[in-house]
């Protein structure tokens, strides 16, 4: 063996060892873990054949915090703040997944007003998440201006969420049996204004970016993900819907008051990066619709179940609860042994499954397109690593 094989770490060695004999001379490079287009600390090892990727392997775990172990140590109440930190862009969906799972386990009733508040805030947060993705993705592709607009809009939404949750990013707002604080008139008025604003901004986004010729060239027919492959990998969320499957947990496994709300599930059959892009933009539109409807339907009443338990001691058993996050199906699986801490707590994060298909998807693409593909998967590394 030459000294060459001694370079790199464990993963590089494994990657090298899997190299075909006839391709031995091919260049192996590391993209990341501090590559700006990997949104955090994702590392991808790629084997290049000229400008084309012949093999790729994502290496993750740089942000691993073992949330699942923490879940076994902390009480049900104490684990709540962890949920805001799994996926910082759509923290409220994770809040909801966990709270919902425990509520299901303990059969806690949630007042209707609280359900609507949850829907409103969760959808607001979804818009925030998509806006960040939108800006960051375009930044990956080399367009600097859009992120300025998207952060401007996101700022409005974050200000509104701050008004009721007190935080701006890592929310810890939902509680067993309701939400922490009620929403006020200022929030409702502000949210209505925000919906109006978004409705005027989305056409602008279309003019500025979606119709842009350069963007289309960077996205169309790039990273085509067939539906069959998406299913094989368990991809969910916009990645799956970009392959034409209308699957959304809000409709497939209805929770909360979503069945009463009228919204569509955007899906585009092309399966390329552009389709995923379109799904997310269309989803923002739908979220605005959901928020407006929920504001109109918002009932009076409690925002917290009056009999919500101060200490949670669920009965023995297991529960799986899934919600639709901005990146796909978020699942929380809890096995309770009847004590005040879970026996086992499993977090199913959508980006994890979505990233696992990258190795297959990136095969044979240009390195520059791999950046576009990675961006179009909308990865949030803390959520992948948990």
């Amino acid at each position, binding site marked *: 063996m030459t000294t060459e094989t001694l370079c790199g770490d464990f993963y590089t060695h494994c990657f090298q060892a899997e190299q075909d004999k006839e391709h031995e001379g091919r260049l192996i490079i590391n993209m990341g873990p501090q590559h700006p287009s990997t949104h955090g600390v994702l590392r991808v090892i790629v084997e290049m054949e000229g400008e084309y990727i012949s093999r790729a392997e994502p290496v993750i775990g740089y942000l691993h915090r073992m949330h699942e172990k923490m879940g076994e140590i902390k009480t049900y*109440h*104490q*684990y709540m703040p962890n949920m805001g930190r799994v996926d910082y862009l759509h923290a409220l969906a994770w809040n909801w997944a966990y709270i919902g799972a425990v509520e299901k386990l303990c059969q806690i009733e949630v007042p209707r007003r609280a359900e609507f508040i949850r829907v409103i805030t969760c959808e607001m947060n979804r818009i925030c998440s998509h806006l960040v993705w939108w800006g960051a993705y375009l930044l990956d592709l080399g367009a600097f201006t859009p992120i300025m607009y998207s952060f401007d809009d996101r700022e409005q939404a974050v200000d509104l969420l701050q*008004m009721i949750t*007190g935080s701006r990013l890592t929310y810890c707002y939902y509680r067993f049996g309701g939400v922490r604080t009620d929403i006020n008139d200022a929030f409702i008025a502000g949210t209505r204004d925000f919906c109006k604003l978004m409705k005027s901004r989305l056409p*602008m986004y279309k003019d500025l*970016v979606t119709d842009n010729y350069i963007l289309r060239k960077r996205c169309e027919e790039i990273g085509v993900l067939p539906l069959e492959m998406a299913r094989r990998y368990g991809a969910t969320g916009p990645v799956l819907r970009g392959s034409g499957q209308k699957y959304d947990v809000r409709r497939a496994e209805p929770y909360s008051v979503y069945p009463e709300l009228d919204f569509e599930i955007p899906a585009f059959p092309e399966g390329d990066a552009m389709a995923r892009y379109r799904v997310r933009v269309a989803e923002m539109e739908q979220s605005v619709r959901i928020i407006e409807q929920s504001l109109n339907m918002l009932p009076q009443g409690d925002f917290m179940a009056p009999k919500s338990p101060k200490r949670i001691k669920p009965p023995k058993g297991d529960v799986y609860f899934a919600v639709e996050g901005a990146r796909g199906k978020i699942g929380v699986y809890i096995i309770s042994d009847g004590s005040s801490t879970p026996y086992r707590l499993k977090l199913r994060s959508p980006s994890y499954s979505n990233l696992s298909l990258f190795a297959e998807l990136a095969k044979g693409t240009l390195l520059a397109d791999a950046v576009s593909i990675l961006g179009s998967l909308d990865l949030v590394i803390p959520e992948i690593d948990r």
Partner: protein
Amino acid sequence: MNLLGEIREAIKGFYSLAVGMGVTGKYFFRPEVTVHYPRKTVDNVSTYSGHVELQPGKKNPDGADCIVCGTCVRNCPSGCLTLEVLELMEENPDLEKKPKKIKKLKALIYDYSYCSLCGQCIENCPVTALGFSQHVYWAEFDRKAIKMDLVARLKDQLNAKKEAM
């Protein structure tokens, strides 16, 4: 692709560019939306939850209402609160009965660097002695400086208020 197609593509490209530039141009004349931070600050900090602090008491206006029950310490997921209790003997004891012990809050040590601002301590306090502060623009060079005694902080705040009056 033939030549005609190429030309059509190019025109489409230029057109989309012009539309985009149009948007940018329009926004160029809109008022500025950013705040130049150290020179100016945003005005909505009143809704922000900063670190945890003891609130001036309703029953005890010179200090906090805290009854030293320890609920906040037990409920904190990150273990950032520590109680220091002063145990006093009851003043003017009833001579027949055994003198009662009174627990008094000496210090409530709070380590902001561990706090996740979840609000468990605040919600669980039986006398709502704790609350979120609006102390937002706070930066320190030393990690130890953000570990503080909430009782002392409250005292300082109350004194400052008195002086201002």
